[in-house]
C-alpha cells in the first residue's frame, strides 16, 4: 500500500479543497416541504388522528372567543338599538325609611329641561291586583303590578306593541288595560280579541293590547298598564293638587335625553323631579345593566378557554408521541437520507417541520371548525358572527408553537440516529 499523505498529488489537493470549500447544499423550501410532509402523506390516518387533538383544542378556543365576541356584539347592538340615553327617576325612600312620593309636578318639571327629549311616566297602583277572572284566589297575584301609564310610554322605553293597541286618549279614561309581555304570559293571554277582559282591582278591564318585552324597563313586562284617568276613576289612584283631587302621582319617570347630554341630565334629574327632597329620588341608567351583563359574559369564558388549553396540551402530547414513534419506524429512511448526503441538521429540520406541519394542519382545521361553530350558533341567536383576529391568529400561532415544542425532542433524536445503525435494521 502506498502512503498517500507523504506526497499528495496536485489533483488530490485540489479535489480536497473543492470538497472542503463546498459544504452541504441547502434544501429549497419546496423540497423541504415535500420531504417534511412524507410522514403525513404516507400515514394519513395516523397524522389525522394526532392532529385531531390540536384541532379540538384550537376549535374550542376559537369558538369560545368567537361566541363571546358575537354575543357581546349582539348585546352591544341591542344596547345601541335601545339607546343608552334612557334615564329613569324612581321614587325612593325618605330619610326615615318611609316610602317617598314624587310630586305631581315632577313630569312637567323634567320635561322643561332643555336636553330632555321625551318624558313618560308610570304610577304604581299599590292597592290593585290583576287576575284572569274573579274566581282566582286573591293571594295568587302572579307577581303582577298594576300601573297607571302615560300614553307615550312604549316609545320612550323602546318597546313596541306586539298585539292590539296601546292606550290612547279615549281608552285611558275607560277600564281598559294593556299587558306587559310577562304579564300576558302569566295571565294566560297570548292573543287579543274583542271582549277579552281581566279582573283588576275588583272590576273588569278590557284588554286592548300586549307589549313586546321591554329590555330597558323590565318592570313594565310584569305590569298591567291602565290610563291615569282610569286608575283614578276605577282604582282609586289619585293625588291632591291645590286642594282638588286629581290624577295620581308618578312613581317612575322615564326620560330620553340628548345622547351627548345624558350625564348632565342625570345630574339634575333628581333635583328637577323633586326639588324639595332630591335625595328621595333614585336615578339610574338602565343600559348600564346590559353593559355590565356584556362584561360578565366575557368573564365566564376563562373556564372554557382553560378547557381548550387542556385539549391543546393533550394534542401536543399526541403529536410528540406520534413523532417519536415515527422516528423509530423511519430509522432506515433516516439512514438512507444520511447516506444520500443529508446532514444531521437537515434531518432535524425535516422532523421538526413535519411536527409543525402536523400541528398547523390540526390548528387550521380547528380554526375552520371554531369559525363554523361560531357562525352557526350566532345565526341561530340572530347575532352577527364576530371572530376576533386574535382568536384565529392565536390558534395558528399556538399550533406552530406546539408543533415546534412537541417536535423538538423527536427531531433531535432523529438527527442523532447513527446512519450505520439505521441502515442495519431491516
Amino acid at each position, binding site marked *: 500500500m502506498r502512503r498517500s499523505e507523504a506526497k499528495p498529488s496536485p489533483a*488530490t489537493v485540489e479535489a480536497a479543497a473543492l470538497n472542503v470549500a463546498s459544504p452541504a447544499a441547502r434544501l429549497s423550501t419546496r423540497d423541504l416541504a415535500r420531504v417534511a410532509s412524507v410522514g403525513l402523506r404516507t400515514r394519513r390516518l395516523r397524522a389525522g388522528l394526532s392532529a385531531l387533538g390540536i384541532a379540538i383544542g384550537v376549535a374550542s378556543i376559537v369558538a369560545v372567543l368567537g361566541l363571546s365576541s358575537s354575543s357581546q356584539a349582539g348585546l352591544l347592538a341591542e344596547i345601541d338599538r335601545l339607546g343608552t340615553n334612557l334615564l329613569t327617576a324612581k321614587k325612593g325612600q325618605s330619610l326615615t325609611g318611609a316610602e317617598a312620593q314624587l310630586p305631581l309636578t315632577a313630569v312637567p318639571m323634567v320635561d322643561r329641561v332643555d336636553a330632555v327629549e321625551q318624558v313618560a311616566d308610570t304610577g304604581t297602583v299599590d292597592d290593585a291586583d290583576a287576575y284572569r277572572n274573579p274566581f282566582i284566589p286573591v293571594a295568587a297575584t302572579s307577581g303582577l303590578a298594576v300601573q297607571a301609564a302615560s300614553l307615550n310610554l312604549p316609545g320612550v322605553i323602546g318597546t313596541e306593541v306586539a298585539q292590539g293597541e296601546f292606550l290612547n286618549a279615549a281608552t285611558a279614561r275607560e277600564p281598559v288595560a294593556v299587558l306587559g309581555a310577562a304579564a300576558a304570559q302569566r295571565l294566560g293571554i297570548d292573543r287579543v280579541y274583542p271582549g277579552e277582559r281581566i279582573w283588576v282591582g275588583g272590576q273588569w278591564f278590557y284588554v286592548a293590547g300586549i307589549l313586546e318585552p321591554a329590555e330597558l324597563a323590565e318592570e313594565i313586562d310584569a305590569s298591567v298598564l291602565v290610563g291615569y284617568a282610569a286608575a283614578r276613576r276605577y282604582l282609586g289612584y289619585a293625588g291632591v293638587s291645590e286642594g282638588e283631587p286629581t290624577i295620581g302621582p308618578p312613581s317612575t319617570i322615564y326620560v330620553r335625553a340628548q345622547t351627548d347630554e345624558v350625564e348632565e341630565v342625570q345630574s339634575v334629574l333628581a333635583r328637577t323631579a323633586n326639588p324639595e327632597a332630591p335625595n328621595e329620588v333614585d336615578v339610574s341608567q338602565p343600559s348600564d345593566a346590559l353593559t355590565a351583563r356584556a362584561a360578565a359574559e366575557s368573564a365566564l369564558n376563562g373556564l372554557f378557554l382553560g378547557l381548550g388549553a387542556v385539549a391543546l396540551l393533550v394534542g401536543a402530547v399526541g403529536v410528540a408521541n406520534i413523532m417519536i414513534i415515527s422516528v423509530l419506524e423511519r430509522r432506515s429512511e433516516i439512514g438512507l437520507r*444520511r447516506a444520500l448526503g*443529508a*446532514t444531521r441538521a437537515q434531518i432535524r429540520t425535516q422532523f421538526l417541520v413535519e411536527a409543525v406541519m402536523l400541528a398547523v394542519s390540526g390548528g387550521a382545521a380547528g380554526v375552520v371548525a371554531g369559525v363554523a361553530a361560531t357562525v352557526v350558533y350566532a345565526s341561530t341567536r340572530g347575532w352577527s358572527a364576530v371572530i376576533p383576529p386574535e382568536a384565529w391568529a392565536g390558534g395558528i400561532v399556538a399550533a406552530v408553537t406546539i408543533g415546534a415544542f412537541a417536535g423538538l425532542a423527536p427531531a433531535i433524536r432523529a438527527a442523532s440516529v447513527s446512519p450505520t445503525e439505521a*441502515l442495519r435494521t431491516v
Partner: protein
Amino acid sequence: MLELDAVTKVYGSEPPVAALRGVGMTIRGGELVAIVGPSGSGKTTLLQIMGTLDRPTSGTVRVDGADAARLDDGELAALRSRSIGFVFQQFFLAEHQTSLDNVADGLLYAGVAVDARRARASAALDAVGLADRESFRPNKLSGGQRQRVAIARALVGEPAIVLADEPTGNLDSASGAAILELLEGLNDAGATIVVITHDRDLAAQLPRQVEMLDGRVVRDATVLRPLL
C-alpha cells in the same frame, strides 16, 4: 478514488470488539472490486467507513481526495452527496414515490434543482434499463427492478465511487446475475464500483477480489479479464 490506510475500528469498550484490525486498500477510478468474506469478517464495517457513514478508530480514509477525518458532519454529508453512491441489500426505496422520484432523490441533498434532478434521474433509469418504468411505484416492480432503481439512484449523481452492500442478497439467482451484469456494464461505462458480498462465486466473476477475514485483508487479487 478511495484510499484506506491502516484503518481500525473498535466497537464498544467493555469488552472492546475489533471489527477492523488495520486495513489498507486503494481503489482507483474505473475499478470493479468485490470485497468478500464471511459474516463477521468486518466487510460491512469496512463499507460504512469507506462511505464515511462511520469514522475509523484509527487510520485514514481519503475519498475523492478528501481526508474524511478532517471533515465535519456537514462536509461529510456534502462529500457523500457528491462523491459516494450507496446500493443496499434492502433497496430502501420510498414506497409512496415513483421510480423517477426515488432516483431523483439521489440528488436531493446535492443542491440540484428539481427539474434537473428529474431529467438526470430519467437518464439514469434509462441507463439501468428501466426507461419504461419511470412512473411505477416500487410495489409494482420486481425485486430485480427495485434494485435497478436503487442502483440508478446511486449513480444519478455520477459519484466517484459506488458502494454496493450485498446488492444481490435479496434477489433470486437470475435477477442477481442480471444485476451483476448491469454493474459490470456500468463499470465498463466508467463507474467505480465496490461490491460487498459473502458470495465467493459472485466475487469470482469480478476483476478484483479483496478477501476479508477477522477484520483483515487476507487476499487482494486482480484477475485480468480475458479479452473477448
